[in-house]
């Protein structure tokens, strides 16, 4: 019997998810033994024509990492969806939009201006911008269009499973692969990681007081965080309570708060709203002024609560007057 075909593909990502595959280390040899990798652009050569030539759903599973920002990426997503029996959103970017998703707070034109005109090191007297079509001594060159917002994979095509994390830890990936190679598949839409929050597996869980009250929040550089005590109890904004477990609290073990890369648990629709509700409820003051002072100590709620998930959040993107449809 033929080995199941597996594909890895990347859209808008940093390549960190690919590193995870490499970080499977010895285990990668087992994976290679168990499956037939039909393509993997970072490490193997492949071509789109081969994929197009394949039977629909003939790829057992495609692990697609990276968010969607160009129509080219959307096309690939649709193609791979068509050819794959199972499509897995692999890593925070395809799962929730990822850190590049923070670009949804800005519009495309300002990004171009900032990069090519306002950068202090840029020398651009003629105000040249990369263009979809341009001419260079008589030759026409083309670039793909850089769309005005970042989308998650499931906002573009149907997704069967999600593997969370930025990047997913090798352990998470390995378990996910095992699950998918197994006989009884979890229900469609399942995130292949534990379905409780990070505190569940956090080594510092016991050190959190039952009745925590917060007068003001601290930023990591403001305090010398104790290496044993719950970071939230030390006033740091830790996303752990609103973030899916599975990473074994790596960041907390590094003595830094969880920043939420694994996204919310299955019952939660909007990770940011949930941690907001949880943290604000702990504020001490009952007066507007006092509450405002406490709130001031979280200077960037969106960047903090949606670090990895803005495109996948309920609001998805900032309302930009003019850019958002108003016709």
């Amino acid at each position: 019997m033929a080995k199941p075909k597996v594909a890895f593909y990347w859209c808008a990502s940093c390549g960190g998810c690919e590193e995870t595959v490499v970080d499977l280390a010895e285990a990668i040899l087992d994976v290679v033994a168990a499956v037939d990798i039909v393509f993997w652009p970072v490490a193997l050569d492949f071509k789109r024509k081969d994929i197009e030539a394949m039977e629909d759903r003939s790829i057992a599973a495609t692990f697609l990492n990276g968010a969607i920002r160009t129509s080219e990426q959307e096309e690939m997503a649709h193609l791979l969806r068509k050819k794959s029996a199972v499509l897995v959103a692999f890593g925070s970017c395809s799962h929730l939009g990822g850190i590049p998703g923070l670009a949804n707070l800005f519009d495309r034109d300002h990004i171009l201006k900032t990069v090519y005109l306002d950068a202090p090191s840029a020398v651009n007297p003629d105000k040249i911008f990369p263009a979809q079509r341009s001419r260079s001594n008589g030759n026409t060159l083309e670039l793909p269009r850089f769309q005005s917002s970042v989308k998650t994979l499931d906002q573009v095509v149907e997704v069967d499973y999600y593997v969370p994390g930025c990047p997913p830890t090798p352990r998470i990936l390995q378990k996910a692969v095992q699950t998918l190679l197994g006989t009884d598949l979890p229900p469609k839409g399942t995130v292949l990681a534990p379905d409780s929050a990070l505190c569940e597996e956090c080594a510092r869980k016991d050190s959190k007081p039952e009745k925590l009250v917060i007068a003001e929040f601290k930023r990591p550089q403001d305090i010398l965080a104790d290496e044993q005590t719950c970071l939230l109890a030390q006033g740091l904004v830790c996303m752990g309570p609103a973030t899916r477990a599975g990473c074994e609290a790596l960041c907390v073990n590094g003595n830094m708060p969880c920043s939420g890369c694994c996204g919310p648990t299955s019952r939660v629709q909007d990770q940011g709203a949930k941690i907001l509700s949880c943290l604000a409820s702990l504020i001490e003051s009952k007066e507007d002024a006092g509450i405002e002072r406490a709130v001031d100590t979280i200077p960037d709620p969106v960047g903090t609560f949606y670090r990895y998930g803005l495109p996948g959040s309920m609001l998805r993107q900032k309302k930009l007057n003019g850019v958002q449809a108003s016709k």
Partner: protein
Amino acid sequence: MPETVSPTNGSNGSGPRIGVYVCHCGTNIAGTVDVKAVAEYAATLPGVAVARDYKYMCSDPGQALIQQDIREHALARVVVASCSPLLHEKTFRKALERVGLNPFMLQMVNIREHDSWVHLDGKAATEKAKDLVRAAVRRVVLHKSLQKRRVPINPNVLIVGGGIAGIHAALTLADAGKHVYMVEREPTIGGHMAKFDKTFPTLDCAACILTPKMTSVGSNPNITLWTYSEVTGVSGYVGNYRIQIKRKPRYIIEELCLGCQECVTACVYKDGKTPDEFNLGLSKRKPVYLPFPQAVPQKVVIDPEVCIEFKSHKCKKTCVEACGDRKAIDFNQKEQIEEIDVGTIILATGFKSFDPLRNPYYGYGRFPNVYTSLEVERLINAAGPTGGEIVLRDGKKPTSVGIIHCVGSRDANTNRWCSKVCCMYSLKLAHLMKERTGAEVFNFYIDMRTPGKGYEEFYDRLLDEGVHFVRGRVAEVTDWPAHPSEKGKLVIRAEDTLAAFVRRIPVDMVVLAVGLEPQPDAQAVRRMFNISCSSEGWFLERHPKLAPVSTFTEGVYIAGACQGPRDIPDSVAQAGAAAAEAMALIDSQFVELEPYTAFITEEECSGCKSCIPMCPYQAISFVPEKKKAAINEVLCKGCGTCVAACPSSSIQQNFFEDEEIFEEVEGLLAYA
């Protein structure tokens, strides 16, 4: 015959079959909302098997209609679009229950109070109704079978306030064999009524009808009477309230005091130097005193503010001698805290009379012969400071009296409301004063308000008796004579709006018919008992017509003037009603609590403890063995604050689960 919209996609739909019922409520809804259009629209919604509109859904035939459909169309969910759920949710839930459908498979849509009654534009109101119905249809699909929680009811009742309302309620309950705790902050019960001489319109003697009731309160084995005491804490829930009561020291051991008052006679003070509260300062009392002869309990009180022993510890303590081996006096008595469990509570905390100093132009406090109506009640009272002699402060009998109505009532500058009793008691006082002094009595009124059995007749009688009535609001009371004949008199200036000219009427005595106000501490009290107040500060009833003595807090009832200006008959009637409500609850033995409690799905809980500080009732605890949170359903009151705080949505609230609310919100906004 109700119009039917033929069964629709609901039948072929896979989800539960839904019935939608749109109520006309006569013209209350149908007059503004196109109910037929709403029903027809509902019929097109996914899952809806049948949609109807009907004149009165809450009527028996209306309910029968629903029940019939449940059977015939195998409905699993019901949406009723009618009035506020607070009015008829119970009704329709029962209707479902009777045909074997779980009552919580119902969702009500408020298209009357929130729609037809508040919008003029029928089109907009109809659209709104459609949106609300759509939301309910989407929400109701997710409803789950829930069971109400039954908790036993403690049969004891707490009654706060020992005025006529409290007294009547207490006796009614006690006679029915319920145990009553009555808490009164004054040293005696009796309230305002005890200060009156006669009661309108029958003019029977207040003491004669009140005193027997007071004594039976004192003697009834089913009543624990705590005077000179205040409720300081309330916790728990309907059927199971825990109450803390502070008993102020009266420095008399109540069990030992016989009320013989020998200590009072024996007191080193030959006569009283302290203004007598019961007589509103019209007489003086000693440091040790009995508030008034018929006081219940018949126990004296020592006022530490003025008692020499407390000031200097050098008193001869003649009182102790007088008390002798009864040893009822205890200068070291301390404040005590009693804690009791009751199932129901009746608040009968009464009113405060308006302070006329707020209307300086009537001269109260400046002119000795300007009195409040209550002071006059004492002057007239045979047991009062003057033994019922109506004399001015200089001892003279008044030859002319002016009674000013609506002092602190119907007045934009003080209280807007009509105090309801002033007209009648002014007539009563006018009659009594004319009868006892033969003085000329002038009533200055805005409108005479005499609704009630025998009231208008009483007014007529006074007209015959030659009491003068001047229709007009009094501008001022002055002692500045404009004419020799006014010398040494108080001049009342008022526009006679019937004769249409300004009159100056010189009198010897001015009586201010002061209005009724909420008790100054009404806000604090209602917070303690977790009920609401109207904007004026009166305790708010659950429904002005259908539940006038109930409040929004189950098991807490209100009676008498704490709910609004009342006269004695009304207060007594209300007290009876409150007692009956309490009894109905007690005799049902169990209360059913809404099942809106929060619950944790254990395997989903990460044990982050975020929920624990959310609960004001300590219903959530952290289970160390499991390292997870747990909710005590009995303690949970179902506010849902912990649900909103749970960062992994592992806590949900029955009937208000996240998904149910999401569906409702999205249903409201889904574009038709």
